[in-house]
């Protein structure tokens, strides 16, 4: 069978639509780099959502659980092989995403005989100095974007942009509680943006924005969702800086939000 340039383009678009369709319902993830450390903040339903990758690196993602798991274990494998054979200092998100993950996802996306991975992953890395913190958002087609102060992955690009805009207002000296609260409100804003735009074509009906609307959405979604936070703790003296915080650890922040209260 001969493939014309049109078919080629069409095939790509179909694969892109297939992946985007699978990502749309994913619970967004907010990333923040602060004085106290690096945070990934999300709301999960059944599956665990934030994972430790290496001593100073963690991961969360939207997408199919099996694809997320393949990327996660692959990343853990590569990081540990490198960390043992050379040094933990040589394990960086830049190398891991740029050289080990991105080319494989790109190849998979271009391969017409295999289905593309449905995954959009957010890697967070804590540097030796706060200025060296980094986020890498890795897409199903192998494209990745580096950012430093904050980052987000969500079901649509519009929702992501909205989250990043909100997260950028969080001060770097924010407390853990304030940061988690801001992250969750950004999460709710993104969730509203995704659900108001069911076709995912950027034709959002004008959803009322603002903190009140976000608080309402958050209280609604927390009825069967649970808050999950990954922390890379800058103050810790352990080599492994990762801590996973659940609602028990964050009760003071989460309880009012469950009631839909801003206080």
């Amino acid at each position, binding site marked *: 069978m001969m493939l014309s340039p049109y078919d080629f383009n069409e095939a790509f678009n179909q694969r892109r639509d297939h992946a985007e369709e699978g990502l749309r319902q994913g619970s967004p993830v907010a990333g923040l780099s602060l004085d106290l450390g690096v945070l990934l903040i999300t709301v999960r339903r059944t599956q*665990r959502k934030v*994972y*430790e*990758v*290496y*001593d100073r690196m963690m991961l969360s993602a939207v997408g199919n659980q*099996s*694809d997320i*798991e*393949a*990327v996660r*274990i*692959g*990343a*853990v*494998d*590569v990081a*540990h*092989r490198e*960390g*043992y054979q050379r040094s933990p200092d040589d394990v960086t998100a830049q190398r891991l995403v740029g050289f*080990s*993950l991105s080319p*494989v996802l790109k*190849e*998979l996306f271009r391969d017409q005989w*295999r289905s593309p*991975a449905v995954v959009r992953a957010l890697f967070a890395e804590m540097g030796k100095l706060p200025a060296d913190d980094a986020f890498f958002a890795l897409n199903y087609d192998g494209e990745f974007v580096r950012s430093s102060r904050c980052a987000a992955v969500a079901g649509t690009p519009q929702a992501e942009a909205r989250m990043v805009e909100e997260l950028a207002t969080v001060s770097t000296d924010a407390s853990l509680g304030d940061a988690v609260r801001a992250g969750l409100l950004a999460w709710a804003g993104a969730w509203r943006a995704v659900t108001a735009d069911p076709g995912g074509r950027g034709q959002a009906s004008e959803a009322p924005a603002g903190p009140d609307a976000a608080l309402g959405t958050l209280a609604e979604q927390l009825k069967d969702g649970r808050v999950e936070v990954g922390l890379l703790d800058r103050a810790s003296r*352990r080599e*492994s800086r990762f801590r996973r915080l659940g609602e028990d650890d964050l009760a003071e922040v989460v309880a009012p939000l469950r009631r839909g209260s801003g206080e």
Partner: protein
Amino acid sequence: MRGESTDLHSAIAGPDPVLALPVHPGLGAGAPEASHGQVAHGTTVIAVKCVDGVINVGDRRATASYSVMYDQAEKVLALDDFTLLAISGSYARSIEVVRYLRHAFRYFERSQLQPMSLDGKLSEVARAVAAGLPMAMQGLGGFIPILSTWDPSAGEPRIFFYDAMGARFESAEYGAAGSGSVQIRGAFEYVVRTKSPFRQMPRADALREALRLLDIAADLDAATGGWAKVLPLARVITAEGIQDVGEAELRAAVAGLAQGEATFVADRG
């Protein structure tokens, strides 16, 4: 050692094993004897229980044949937040094994999303000891560890020691390894039978007894360092995790021993 395999996962991770401890085949028959003199060895390490947990002490001397190669050697090394490995024998092999074990424990926890069991960790250590046997037979690369840990399910400290082939034994009171440990073996029994079981001693008393035993080992074994110049290394594991015994506490304990001021009351408790 690796996790589940899928198409995408194996494409990312590649075919090589994630973690593989190198096994040195040894130099074979006819290896020059002189090379033995170049290999650094660690010597006496001691683990004793106390009321709060378990204390590890080690001298700081690394020897190569009749030379002192290094007087700042660290022989009590953390494998994770609640586990210490006190090492004796080939320094190179010990350090490599400790690096391997640290990665293996963390790799297991991160890939499997649950911590490795105590039994699993003990088996990993046993395999690492046994893998060094060919070199140990040539007097080159053997190492023998003592593993101390806090067992959260039992709510108590545990001490395990190994033989050169990797057999594992649990000790209720104490463990010692290295060339100086042979000379002081009976002294441990003497302390337990005449003073008090280590596990019933307050931390300060158990630390003092462990340091005194290390001092005896230094007196009776040429390869074990004393503390005239460099303080020994001491670490404690409690329910809260691992802490270094601070320099002040260590200096006070050592000074007390040196001046013969250690006043242990035999009928305590």
